[in-house]
């Protein structure tokens, strides 16, 4: 594929991703906006893949290697931290837990 064709193709998926992003996010309730931010934060941690490519590029000098290495460190902090924090948050969102025995007893008293 020529460079221009590749570019056109990439711009196309970029534009489609914009609309997809709007579409999917508009269905997220306010209740989950913090996990949404933290979850999308984890997803842009994909930058670590780019950092890996740069670090491993053959035939480059020490400069690229060092910068690439730092980028891998930063990117993996982003991706791991992002997913772990989001998981911790979402774990806490629960429906009302099954009534404990004493709760049930009190419920009967009230009625």
């Amino acid at each position, binding site marked *: 594929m020529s460079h221009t064709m590749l570019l056109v193709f990439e711009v196309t998926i970029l534009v489609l*991703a914009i609309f997809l992003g709007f579409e999917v996010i508009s269905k997220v309730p306010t209740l989950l906006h913090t996990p949404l931010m933290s979850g999308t934060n984890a997803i842009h941690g994909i930058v670590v893949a780019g950092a890996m490519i740069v670090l491993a590029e053959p035939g480059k000098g020490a400069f690229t290697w060092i910068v690439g290495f730092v980028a891998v460190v930063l990117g993996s902090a982003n991706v791991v931290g992002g997913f772990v924090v989001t998981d911790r948050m979402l774990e806490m969102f629960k429906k009302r837990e099954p009534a404990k025995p004493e709760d049930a007893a009190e419920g009967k008293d009230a009625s």
Partner: protein
Amino acid sequence: MSTTTADLLYLIPIVTFILALRFLSSPAHARRGNQIGAAGMIVAIVVTWIKAGGTSWWAIVIGMLIGGGFGAFAARKVKMTAMPQMVALFNGVGGGAAALIALAELHRLLPPPGRPHVDVLIAMALSGLIGAVSFAGSMIAFAKLQELIGGRPITYPGQNVGNMVLLAVLVALAIALSVGVQDQWLLWVIVGGGSLFGVLFVLPIGGADMPVVISLLNAFTGLAVAIGGFELQNNVLIVAGMLVGASGTLLTLKMGKAMNRSLGNLLFSAFGQVTAEAAAVAAGAGGGTVRSASAEDVAVMLAYAHKVVFVPGYGLAVAQAQHDVRQLADMLEAKGVEVTYAIHPVAGRMPGHMNVLLAEANVPYTQLKEMDEANPEFSRTDVAVVVGANDVVNPDARSNQSSPIYGMPILNVDEAQAVVVLKRSMNPGFAGIENPLFYNPKTVMLFGDAKESIMKLTAAVKTL
């Protein structure tokens, strides 16, 4: 692994990221969605590692262990109240990585006979610039939220003009890099200038507007990553980055709407400046008296109510009172009182921050009511208990045109039969705006630390 195989395998992370966001539409399956996304991320990393790793595979592993170890440690340790700064920090390092990729790629491609395509140069200039703004801006946001530096807006004359000039210069340099002057130092200047702009741009924004800033910077990092995908001809970076860019932008706009302020106003007006004179006006106009009550009085009000609504704000987070509020609510429910929580979209330091804190305290999410759902309920509420919230319940937003928050949708707690405000003192809140709710004859104030007050209330309700 061939490029075709890798590109096909990259479809797996792309699909899982979309599913992860899709699953966030309900708390019932949101967690599973996040795990699916994480699994897709592992696929993306393994595929990239096998395909590109080459002789440097070990360096990648070491780098990932260092960064991932730090990320996992910090993410496990952080308190839920400190969540906003943690997200800011992770967001910043992601932006920094995007800027570094641009610098490294330019260094690799520039030496003769390498003449990078114009679009690749544009991508480098943009991801370097946006990544740097996001990195430095997030670090300042982190420092403000962590209270390493003051949360108040920092302003000086000519601030906006200065920032605009700096941005214009940076854009001009980016154009120069793209069309002709192919020199590495230019990108260094762009990245350095972008970092400076990030600092100057976030410094004047007050702590109360931080949720919007973090959301915007999140979108910036996503955008920088997507543009980075153009440098490396990598689809998964483009799609994942742009999904985040689009969602961050939409969320930022939604929050602006929830505060009835345009994005421009949020970012460039150094909120909190205007308020000194507005506060004076409001105080003069109010001029009423404040009724303060003891915990015992309030306990009686609560215990004999049919319906009580808690309205949490950032004060609750600061005092770490979410668990105590939940205990009090449990006790009231045991006495047959109907309890719900009314949550304003911008309460706290992050969109939806209050929901996370209350979920942490095991409050079932079915009891958490969003503004549209909560407001019609106030007229049949006996007692509204405002815990550490201020601006989001300020009736001036409805009626006082001179108020800086005029027009912002609020929780109409003054429609309840009675209002109890838990507050440290009569000092105006974070934004420094006077609140006539406190002078309303229906309102009683319970002064003191939110946590202590709630504990006193719980003790008093227990004796009834």
